[in-house]
């Protein structure tokens, strides 16, 4: 209606009451340790405006018109998109050569037409925690352009966090964000213990030159070794206390520690029948707990070290699935005991798998090359402290209630409930579904 009021002799500035799709580029940044695999989709329409791709000016682009200008397209992206990790500049691999498969000129379709796809691997100084993107694409030709970036870790664990979506505005220059944390680590906690304590969500920085003040923002004051160690201890405690799968595994193994399995001859049938009876000797219970806890500690320490030292590196999806399976088995073992007195053996075998789980948490918490001792020790100590907290909370209660019917009921119901929850985890982790949180 208002646009009908374009005024004679004056501007043809009648407004657009409705809109075409605005200009967006799509960035996928997949962080893999110190490397970042970047895929950038840029609309051919936008590229044509800046680079005059339409050589014969017939208002359509042939593949040849695009392909032969690929170097210019790549150069434009290189000029206007820069990555920094934790305060240090990352460098793109050598200019794409059309001959290699990974760098072949490629197109893709988005909802409003064809886009050029640029694929580049960036190398950063250390495993990436906080990523900064300097984005000035089309800043001088279309300031309403936006880059829609998906940032994720190259981690395929079944319950990996959703990739982070960030809208890059070319006028703003630097955009900084921490990476999505591991499944069981809350983002703000991951950030607080990583070397660069960054704001948890995307934060646009004022435009700054690449080597200027932004480094001052991104680089933390030098931390002492002690505070680094303490940071990893805290990370370890945190990981086990909010890692419900580890807690439920331990709980399933601790609940029967205040009981012993007694075999009784059924007088009527003449058959032997086993049942749980309250332990009369506290020492027995404590020994049982000690065995379980020690087995768990030794086992997960072994695999934690192997994994962090890159000796063994099983895919996290399988690890997470088997951890869930271990919880199911431990809980069911309480209802239908296969292993009663030698639960520490069961604990040991599955403790190995839990170690791999801890390792991926530790790796994602950020490890600089060559400085593995402190994180390894600190994190492990943290896990032990967290574990002892659980024992300290559960054991006195279990001991005092061990003879009651309440405990017997809670034991059976609790074990079944744990088995059910863990079975759901198992299904969703193994088949990459999302049914419940965990």
């Amino acid at each position, binding site marked *: *209606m*208002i*646009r*009908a*009021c*374009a*005024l*004679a*002799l*004056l*501007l*043809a500035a*009648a*407004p*657009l*009451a*409705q*809109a*075409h*799709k*605005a200009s967006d580029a799509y960035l996928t940044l997949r962080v893999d340790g110190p490397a970042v695999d970047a895929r950038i989709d840029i609309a051919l*329409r*936008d590229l*044509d*405006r800046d680079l005059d791709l339409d050589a014969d*000016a*017939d*208002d*359509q*682009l*042939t593949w040849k018109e*695009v*392909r032969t200008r690929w170097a210019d397209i790549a150069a434009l992206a290189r000029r206007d998109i820069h990555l920094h990790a934790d305060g240090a500049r990352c460098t793109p691999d050598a200019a794409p050569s059309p001959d290699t498969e990974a760098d072949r*000129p*490629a197109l*893709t*379709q988005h*909802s*409003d*037409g*064809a886009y050029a796809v640029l694929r580049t691997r960036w190398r950063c100084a250390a495993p990436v925690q906080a990523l900064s993107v300097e984005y000035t694409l089309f800043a*001088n*030709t*279309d*300031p*309403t*352009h*936006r880059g829609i970036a998906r940032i994720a870790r*190259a981690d*395929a664990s079944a319950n990996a966090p959703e990739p982070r*979506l960030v*809208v890059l505005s070319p006028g703003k220059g630097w955009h900084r964000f921490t990476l999505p944390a591991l499944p069981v680590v809350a983002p703000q906690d991951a950030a607080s213990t990583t070397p660069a304590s960054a704001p948890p969500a995307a934060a646009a920085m004022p435009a700054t030159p690449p080597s200027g003040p932004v480094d001052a923002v991104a680089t933390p004051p030098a931390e002492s070794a002690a505070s680094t160690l303490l940071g990893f201890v805290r990370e370890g405690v945190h990981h086990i206390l909010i890692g419900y799968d580890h807690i439920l595994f331990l709980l399933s193994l601790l609940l029967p520690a205040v009981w012993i399995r007694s075999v009784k001859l059924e007088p009527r049938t003449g058959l032997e029948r086993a049942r749980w009876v309250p332990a009369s000797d506290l020492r027995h219970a404590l020994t049982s707990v000690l065995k379980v806890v020690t087995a768990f500690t030794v086992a997960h320490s072994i*695999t934690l070290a192997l994994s962090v030292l890159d000796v*063994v590196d099983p*895919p996290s*999806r*399988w690890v997470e699935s088997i951890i869930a399976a271990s919880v199911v088995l431990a809980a069911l073992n309480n209802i239908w005991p296969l292993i009663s007195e030698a639960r520490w053996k069961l604990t040991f075998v599955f403790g*190995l*798998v839990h170690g791999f789980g801890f390792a991926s948490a530790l790796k994602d918490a950020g490890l600089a090359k060559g400085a593995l001792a402190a994180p390894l020790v600190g994190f492990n100590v943290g896990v032990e402290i967290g574990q002892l907290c659980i024992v300290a909370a559960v054991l006195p209660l279990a001991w005092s209630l061990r003879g009651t019917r309440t405990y017997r009921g809670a034991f059976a119901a609790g074990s079944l409930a744990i088995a059910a929850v863990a079975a759901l985890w198992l299904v969703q982790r*193994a088949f990459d579904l999302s049914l419940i949180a965990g």
Partner: protein
Amino acid sequence: MARAAASLLALALTLVVAPSFGAGESALQFPARDDAIVEHLPTHVGDAAERRAARAAERAQRAALQEHPDELGLALQAARDALARGRLRGDPRELGVAQAALAPWWSRADAPPEVRLVRATVMQSQHLFQAALVELDAVLATPGAALPVRAQAELTRAGVQQVLGRFPEAEAGCRRLAGADYVALGSGVRLNALACIAELSSLQGHADSAAATLARLAGAPDVDSATTAAGVAAPGWLNLMRAELAQRRGDAAAGALFAAALKSSPDVYTQCAYADWLLDQHRAAQVVALFKGNEAADPVLLRVALAYRQLHGRGHPLTREATATLGERYDAALLRGDKSHGREQSRYELELRGDARAALRHARANWAVQHEPADALVLARAAHAAHRDDAAAPLWQFLRETGGRDARLSVGGPAAAPFLQAAAQTVARSAP
């Protein structure tokens, strides 16, 4: 021990499929032939030679601006050309091009009034109405602003106020434009002012007399000379105004008026307005034909999808594909924080996806900002479909206060129902 773990892992291997990376990314294409057409760019008007010339002129202008970015005249011309192209094609990228051309002045509080006027136009197109009003007030408060610039600011401000439903303020602006201050600008400005006043009165219960006034203005002898700089003939916008009024009055003459408007100003807004009328008349095949080969703009795609739905049903592949594409575009707009699609998104949810509650959510959010007849229509239809008649109460209240009437609210619309008729009658009775 590692071996124990490894054997467990091997067991898991047999159970678990390999994780898939990159879900959600669109597939890569490697065209096999050099002469494959990979993209159609916005077309320029005319035959091959004229198109080439137009493109060359655009390039030359861009190059000149790059050379002399501080030359205000050059920058203003580039910005105005971009807005004209954007208007013709319905392309918001051109808003960015206009902004880029004026970059040296864009964020300056003391920008010249000409720049502020362009800035207001861009903001208004982005539905940033309040910000646009601030700019326009500033232009009109600048003592030295050239008369044509003031006149355009006055008219644009009236337009924004009309969208916001502030009819008295809008009318005051148009009356100033029709007055002695602007008489030096000639009959073209006066025509705009009188048409503006007539349209505003049509929105306040005087549809019949307004229709007569607009018809008289369209028949005036000097109307053909009242042509804008972009080549939009005055009869184009005047006929569009008359067509939209006829549509609100339920007058079958609307079709011919839309067709006439389209003939002299074939821009996306006019096309979409005509398409909406055709859809209400169940003439979907004509909508498809109208946009054939030119479906790029979001509002166009919506009308095409609605036409497919009318022709083939919601489950037809054509409808589904257009609906899916629209959904992706709205998602992209949402990501960039663009909330200007509310009216269209409400129709998308209601008429294409069948989600009345989502439609109502968009319609209400849209009504909270803008009060055009089309905004009223989507709110009434969404509220009715969602069985939330109470949600349309602010609309009926607004119509009672302004005296507005719209035939589509009582008959004709696909979601029209007895309740709408009753409500419209109530409104009609309470109108002065």
